[in-house]
């Protein structure tokens, strides 16, 4: 089938699905509603947001006459404390973290009840980053830890990409208009730009945006297939971000390859060319930008065939990191450690359909993580290395949509509940060492 026919096929699919679905109200619906609503609901008091009635939190405390003298003394003391605090903060101003490699652990940002909060992974204390009626989700810190980006819901199921300083100040939209079909985005190493892949009018589009929308979005003319879901520009190359990694179909092919696109020269370099029936997915840079990890499976094999490769960034020295099929790199469930020596990979689903996760060292040793097939806990949909590589955090989504977090020990694979709450994947903030 030619690409034209493929594209036509994709275009007519929604209409065909409508016909095939033949959506009619089923005869059993009324009985099903009655059976469902005859059960008890989960009590409202189990949701923390409902613990404190508004009348309690908003009631004004009764006051006596104004004690002006005491207030004056307190004001003077307050000014003195503020001046001392300002001097202290100024003397303690931190350097920014290097955007790649090992760093000190900072906060973890999550979405909670439609706002973004930063939580201290040691004390679980939280600091609000955004507040207000808007619905914010999916926060990500910039590589140097100085900024934070997240999605803000807009009308019609669309999203604005917002960027603020790490403390929530200087908040501004990076996207001039809300995006309807955002596929992926990432910060440039200096945190000043964003690489955004989205679907526009049925075709893939890759843009470079300035974080404050001060310049018009730059649409990248990447000479690869733009058919729906046929292209993804994932990440800036460490450490300078002058190139980006692209996984895409070439026009006329049905399998994807790995490419490096130079943002300055506009040159496209082939790293792993498509070779039907093998298809590529899950490509990511090593933290030093010298290697690329990717997985490949055969479309001709109905069972497990995926293998994971590491290849030098110039397209040479391609080698397998697993001899047996079934181990894949699939971000965000896979992640390269900040030190560059270990990678979280996914294993094949067990009989119960649940995937496994393991930490694979580049020297060939591996540590299975205690999740997935045979364990009580499913493996998270994302794994995030702490900046110092001492722990991994992951996000679990249960069947009813409830989000919880786990912490794993990379040395032993042991997993425990993280003890904090939120509604989205967590992002670690990198900090410079003292």
């Amino acid at each position, binding site marked *: *089938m030619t690409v034209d*026919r*493929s594209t*036509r*096929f*994709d*275009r*007519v*699919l*929604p209409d*065909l*699905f*409508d*016909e*095939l*679905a*033949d*959506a*009619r*109200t*089923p005869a059993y*619906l*009324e009985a*099903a*509603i009655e*059976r*469902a*609503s005859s*059960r008890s*609901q*989960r009590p*409202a008091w*189990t*949701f923390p*947001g409902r613990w404190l009635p508004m009348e309690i939190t908003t009631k004004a405390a009764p006051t006596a006459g104004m004690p002006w003298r005491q207030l004056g003394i307190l004001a003077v003391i307050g000014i003195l404390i503020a001046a001392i605090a300002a001097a202290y903060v100024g003397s303690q101003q931190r350097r920014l973290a290097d955007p790649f490699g090992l760093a000190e652990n900072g906060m973890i940002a999550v979405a909670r*009840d439609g706002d973004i909060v930063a939580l201290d992974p040691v004390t679980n204390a939280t600091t609000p980053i955004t507040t207000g009626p808007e*619905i914010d989700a999916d926060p990500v810190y910039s590589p140097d830890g100085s900024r934070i980006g997240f999605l803000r819901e807009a009308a019609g199921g669309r999203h604005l990409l917002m960027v603020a300083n790490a403390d929530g100040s200087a908040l501004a939209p990076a996207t001039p208009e809300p995006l*309807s079909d955002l*596929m*992926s985005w990432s910060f440039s190493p200096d945190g000043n730009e964003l690489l955004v892949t989205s679907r526009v009018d049925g075709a893939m589009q890759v843009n470079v945006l300035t974080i404050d929308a001060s310049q018009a979005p730059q649409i990248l003319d990447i000479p690869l297939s733009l058919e729906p*879901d046929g292209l*993804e520009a994932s990440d800036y190359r460490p450490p300078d971000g002058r190139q980006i990694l692209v996984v895409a179909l070439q026009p006329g092919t*049905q*399998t*994807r390859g790995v490419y490096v696109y130079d943002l300055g020269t506009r040159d496209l370099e082939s790293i792993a060319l498509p070779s039907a029936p093998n*298809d590529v*997915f*899950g490509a990511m840079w090593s933290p030093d930008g010298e290697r690329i990890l990717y997985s490949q499976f055969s479309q001709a094999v109905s069972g497990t065939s995926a293998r994971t490769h590491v290849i030098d960034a110039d397209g040479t020295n391609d080698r397998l990191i697993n001899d047996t099929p079934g181990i894949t790199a699939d*971000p*965000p*469930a*896979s992640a390269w450690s900040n030190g560059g020596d270990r990678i979280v990979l996914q294993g094949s689903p067990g009989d119960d*359909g649940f995937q496994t996760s393991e930490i694979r060292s580049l020297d060939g040793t591996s540590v299975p993580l205690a999740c997935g097939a045979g364990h009580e806990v499913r493996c998270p*949909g994302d794994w995030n290395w702490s900046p110092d590589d001492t722990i991994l955090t992951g996000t*679990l*989504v*249960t*069947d*009813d*949509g409830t989000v919880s977090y786990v912490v794993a020990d990379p040395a032993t694979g042991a997993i425990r509940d993280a003890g904090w709450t939120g509604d989205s994947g967590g992002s670690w903030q990198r900090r410079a060492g003292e």
Partner: protein
Amino acid sequence: MDQHGLVERARRGDRQAFAELVRASGARLDATARLILRDRELAQDAVQETLIRAWRGLPGLRDPATFDHWLHSLVAHACIDLVRKRRRRVVEVQLTPIHDAPSGDEVGRIANRDQLDRVLARLEPEARAVVVLHFYLDLPLPRVAEMLGIPVGTAKSRLHRSLGAMRSAIAIDEVASAPASALGGPVR
């Protein structure tokens, strides 16, 4: 009353409001479950389970505007869970045509629909869930991934692999049959 008001009432235990909400979505829920599971009885079980989870979990729904999205997420999970349970019991899922006998004389459209029906049947349920949520419910892939609790890369791979398999199956079908398909004709 608008959906927002109905969700608020249902969250407080109003069964009538819940019924109104579900009646508005029932046809789409049932169709989604049939497309993923390809079995009317299993689809009915999945919708029943969805409604139970929805009723019990409604007080925890933070944003009433996300009700439809949340309900679709619940039905997708209910379908996948049913498939997993049946796999564990090693019970064969009987694949039956999900559509009644065709009527009328729209031969080309019916041929396309039946063609899609056949190629869908060849996909694994998890892959069908991605295809159905993306193309039938028109949800972007990141949202599909979020709904199914899988990485976006996995959703993309499943979709890409499924589309490849479907294209190949259709190409084989077309070689073996008369060219009545609009897939080879004008785009609607």
